[in-house]
């Protein structure tokens, strides 16, 4: 049994400390918004926040995040998150949508750290989130738009 702080609530999960956080979230906390893509931290589909930092939950042992604030796509609620989600919809970013939870989590973390990112900043922060539909031009535009909304 491990106690995790997920989306602001304390949850007791029947998991071993070496289980990847992704499986604890999906199979035990039943939060399926975070996706399995590659299982080796190379695609970004499993991105969540731990104490505000974007991390790849598929390679993060759940034991290492006990006591820390874990935020998933279901619980991301900051002003930046709202701006990103709105911009994502206005600019019609998602196609198949499968990678988009991870994209949004990375974009929110970027804007919370850097409110006016350049294209280079965006490339660096988002480079580990791949999208096979290649919605990249719109991801870039949506991050700029969200930055503008946030002022």
């Amino acid at each position, binding site marked *: 049994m491990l106690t995790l702080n997920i989306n602001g609530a304390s949850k007791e999960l029947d998991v071993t400390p070496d289980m990847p956080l992704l499986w604890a979230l999906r199979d035990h906390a039943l*939060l399926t*918004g975070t*996706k399995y893509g590659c299982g*080796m931290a190379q695609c970004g589909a499993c991105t969540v926040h731990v104490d505000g930092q974007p991390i790849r939950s598929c390679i993060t042992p759940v034991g290492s995040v006990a006591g820390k604030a874990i935020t998933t796509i*279901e619980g991301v609620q900051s002003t930046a998150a709202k701006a990103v989600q709105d911009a994502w919809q206005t600019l019609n970013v*998602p196609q198949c*949508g499968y990678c988009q939870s991870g994209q949004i989590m990375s974009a929110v973390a970027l804007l919370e750290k850097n409110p006016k990112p350049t294209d280079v900043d965006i490339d660096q922060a988002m480079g580990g989130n791949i999208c*096979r539909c290649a919605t990249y031009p719109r991801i870039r535009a949506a991050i700029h738009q969200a930055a503008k909304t946030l002022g």
Partner: protein
Amino acid sequence: MKQGHAGQAIPHDSAIRHVSGTARYVDDIPLPLNTLHAMVGTSTCAAGHITQLDLSAVKSSAGVKAVLTLDDVTGHKDIGPVFPGDPLLSTGEILFYGQPIFVVAADTYQNARRAARKAKIEYTPQTPLLDVKQALHQQRFVRPTHIFGQGNAQAAIQAAPIQLHGEQYIGGQEHFYLEGQVSLALPTEEGVMVYSSTQHPSELQKLVAEVLHLPIHAVTVEMRRMGGGFGGKETQAAQWACLAALLALKTQQAVKLRLPRADDMSLTGKRHPFWNQYTLGCDEEGKILGAMIQVVGECGYSPDLSDAIVDRAMFHSDNAYYLPNAHIVGQRCFTNTVSHTAFRGFGGPQGMMIIEQAMDDIARRVGKDPLDIRKLNLYQEQQTTPYGQTIEYFVLPSIIEQLEYSSDYWQRREGIKLFNQTASHVKKGLALTPVKFGISFTAQHLNQAGALIHIYTDGSIHLNHGGTEMGQGLNIKVAQVVATEFGVDIERVLISATRTDKVPNTSPTAASSGTDLNGKAAQQAAQILKARIAECIATEYQVPVESVEFVNNQVRYLGGALSFAEVANLAYLHRVSLSSTGYYKTPLIHYDRKAGKGRPFFYYAMGAAVSEVQIDTLTGEYKVLRVDILHDVGTSLNPAVDQGQIEGGFIQGMGWLTTEELMWNQEGRLLSTSPATYKIPAISDTPPVFNVALLKDHPNGVATIYHSKAVGEPPFMLAISVWSALRDAISSLSHYKMSPRLDTPATPERVLRAVLESRAHNP
């Protein structure tokens, strides 16, 4: 105010769910109690026979509930979609490295995975056949050769002032849908219910039924959305569904089979690699007089869809150019690899590449700009293709003219020439390439679709059709059609999951045809219901039926109007059926395979792109600096969706031709089995200047749904401009005298080799 009708750039129907993590994919479905998890055990050689199969350690592994081999299959053992050749599990013969031999179900995913590795298998291995040219030499084909043409190519080439020859190797492509292959099977009273990430629920349903030895009606398949398909889930989702269903019936428990990423990449087919060559004759101006083209697909171990894929490569080996005398040969080679399959463009891109290479080669030979050669050879109205289809509604001359202007092609050409003369190590290249892509399944019977609409008494509309949503925006477009027909806001139309028990015997969502086919079928269903309602109103209010119209969420008639909800209830009270199917089949298309003549395509979708690149001649590294695209979607049903398909298709095509390299070792084992070793484009690969526009004021000349055009595949091939621009930059090293060979993917290594070759040619 009309909300969400055809032509409006409204968001994807799942937009809110996509951004909030609530869009449900197969792997997200809450599982029934005691669901088992399945994993396949695979071969560790690429060719040979199994001499010993010891599964005792697998069976006794923790949590294991069932282990099955082909001997446990009571129904069909072969799941070849069109032709046989795809055993569900190995027959004892090994055809490729990673071929599934057995399947195990256990209480957890981890236990299944551990158990699958415990098999003791011995083989008598054989030397695998891995080289397409060797296969060609040995005449090892999975399907017969097909040939078509017009005029007398050989005589025309011999008589021509200039003869040219070229060859190319075109690499394959991993689909890399972010959501991998996955199926969930639940035993039911009569058979099995399958949730699968598939582009072809009906075929999957049939194959599951055949494997289980059940009638098709005992199997139901549901598909809400895929996390990407791109062709990789047209036929190759079926194996995992069949195995999950087999285990579900055996154990009478729900079974989920989700491939780990490395298995997904090793065990499923890819875009076909091709080896192509041309011999052509042209005049001194560069006009083609005759061409002989050979396209050879590397198909892997079985036919799968390779017959149609190589056909489509042949149908596109002319791309947009008139070949007055042509002889086109298409061959389908066997190799000991996974069975290569559908992938956006379906062979078309690989076929187009050979004629685009020829265009560049002619330009270097006659000393002209490649764009001039492309324009010189461009089709004109009423000319015929090598397979006998007449060119109609040919908008490419207009597209190219507009794009030359909007992209500043000629001014930039001069600037680049100047730059290349002065820059020492960095060279720039520019290319404009067109796309003419035939729309329709080349297998005629697939060009049909069905839809189902219910109207409930509160006026809400339930829409179902045979197409599948994989991100291309099919569902929202079809819903827009239905909203337009009924004159209601789109919110009134609920799009529901594709299910084989709602619309039967459907075609795969493929060949870019999803909206063309299902949009028309849904339109027909809506029109049937409108006619019934109009008749009901005419009788009730004693007005002419022609006076009834469906506008602004109302049904109006001579002297009155009712809300759509009131009308629905009225119709119900008058015992009018508020449910209808709709059906559509594409007219005019036919192809006589024996004669190699016909009209395989209802129409062509067209577009063109200008790409500018910069290469470092010391390292072979390069950047794409700017891309301008003008693409023809007829009258767009949804410009936001269409433009997204163009942007994404282009970038995906660019990945295919540049960074995405499939690597097999000498034993036939795939080495590029993860995103660490297989590089699809990332955000930093997006061209810094990327101007994408839709061609205006050109409704489709044929009667498609509201005169729109298909858009899923055609933009993929616009990326050929990047490859051609790379060749242009390299050619500058020989003062544009030499056309360097540049096989794909044009990785920096290949670019560097071409640079050295081009330099060596510089006197």
